[in-house]
């Protein structure tokens, strides 16, 4: 399973037939394994790794740290889920350390994100404090090097 997960993480467009050959399994076995991983909530989706700034140079990426007052019944869950519901939000994680929740957001421009922080996030009662960091450049995303200029310098021997 570990090898299958690694292969899918590196390229989820590998066909079941290709995966089967590489893993020395039958195509049916691979299909079953993937179905199980999906069912068990280990694989939660398949996506493309996009260099947003190459697609649209105005796109802005931001990490927003939130300090949050935990709720009596649900702790941080409800607030994290509420934030996850916003379309602009790419990722939400509960963190240890000096803040509680980190929110990953992409917007069309800086104003877009500023509005999102002030009107959506800061407006949540339990949110005590926000700190917004804007991304300047991406070098690696989801294990994939972005815009690599590394050349294969090996010769033939």
């Amino acid at each position, binding site marked *: 399973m570990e*090898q299958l997960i690694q*292969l899918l993480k*590196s*390229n989820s467009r*590998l066909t079941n037939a*290709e995966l089967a*050959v*590489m*893993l*020395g399994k039958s195509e049916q076995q691979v299909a079953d394994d993937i179905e199980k991983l999906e069912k068990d909530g280990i694989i939660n989706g398949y996506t493309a790794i996009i260099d947003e700034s190459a697609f649209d140079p105005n796109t802005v990426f931001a990490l927003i740290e939130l300090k949050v007052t935990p709720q009596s019944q649900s702790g941080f869950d409800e607030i994290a889920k509420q934030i996850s519901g916003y379309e602009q939000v790419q990722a939400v994680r509960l963190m240890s350390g000096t803040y509680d929740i980190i929110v990953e957001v992409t917007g069309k421009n800086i104003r877009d994100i500023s509005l999102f922080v002030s009107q959506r996030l800061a407006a949540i009662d339990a949110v005590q404090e926000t700190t917004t960091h804007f991304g300047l450049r991406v070098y690696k995303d989801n294990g994939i090097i972005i815009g690599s200029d590394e050349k*294969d310098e*090996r*010769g*033939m*021997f």
Partner: protein
Amino acid sequence: MIDYEKALSKAIKEMKPSGIRKFFDIAQGMEGVISLGVGEPDFKTPWLVRKEAIDVLEKGKTCYTANSGLMTLRTEISKYFERTIDTHYDPEHEIVVTVGGSEGIDLCIRSMVEPGDEVLVVEPCFVCYRPIVELCGGVAVSIETKAENEFRLTADELREKITDKTKLLILPFPNNPTGAIMRREDLESIAHVLKETNIIVISDEIYSELTYSGKHVSFAQIEGMRERTIVINGFSKSFAMTGWRLGFLGGPHQIVSQLLKLHQYAIMCSPTVSQYAAVTAMQSCIGDIEKMKNEYDMRRRFVVDAFNKLGLDCFTPQGAFYVFPCIKSTGLSSVDFCEKLIFAKKVAVVPGDAFGACGEGFVRVSYAYSINHLREAVKRIGEFLEELKNGKV
């Protein structure tokens, strides 16, 4: 005016340049070439090893070492031999740290071959053996292995070529370019042939860690064979350390003490920084070998399957990181196939006859590349074969 023709020796003038090199030069001169030609890992040397080298440089530990290498490294190599091939070599007298496996091969051949001696070279094989033998005035005698035997050396093939002039047998397994390995029973039948002779075996085991079915078996492990075997190995392939130029050999002290003199005069000692880094590789990076091997193994299955599907018969190699598909069905010679392929589709592979005449009709394909790279290359080769069929190339 200097007459360079007169200045150069006959032997060096007659030495042929490597057949691999030619295709590399073509590939170098073209834009957008996708290569399947390399003979070295695509992995980076494990970080701990690189870090150790940086530390060593910072501390300025850059003097010569003992001729045969740092004692700590030789001790680690001795342990490595015991662990991997269950054979003891005394680090004091039976191990030399060399400049890559290549120097080990050079030392052995030059220390033993005299004019007229015959050296049995199991082909297809790496390109360096024959030129060194001939430089010494020796005669390189090919033993041609066959696809139907999965490119293993058989006892009969060996027996046929032995004469009273035979001095050495070079046994290059796991094999570059075929990916063949020798199982214990194959080695035993070879040992049986050699038993009553005075033939010494150079067992080039540089790809030993890349054995995909079971554990690698060394010729030195076969009963009674340690005394006639020199095992060549190194850090290049197993630890992805090609550019560090570090190999080692183990053999009976009667031979090793003699060839060490040549190493002393020609090399002095192997690169010191590399030697310190190699100690770390041995002590802390064995796990990295396994990881790299698993990755190669997946690519191996992918490539073998792909070539067979393309109609280029390809036996499943059990070692190294090459496949050796047969291209006879295209009606082209190996060189023509490779030339047409690189010009039509910009894919570089190496013609099989660069590794001995019996490699004709085959090409060497390296899978020391990412899956995505291999996929693209296979796609282009598929298109090439289609166009070849339709008379377009």
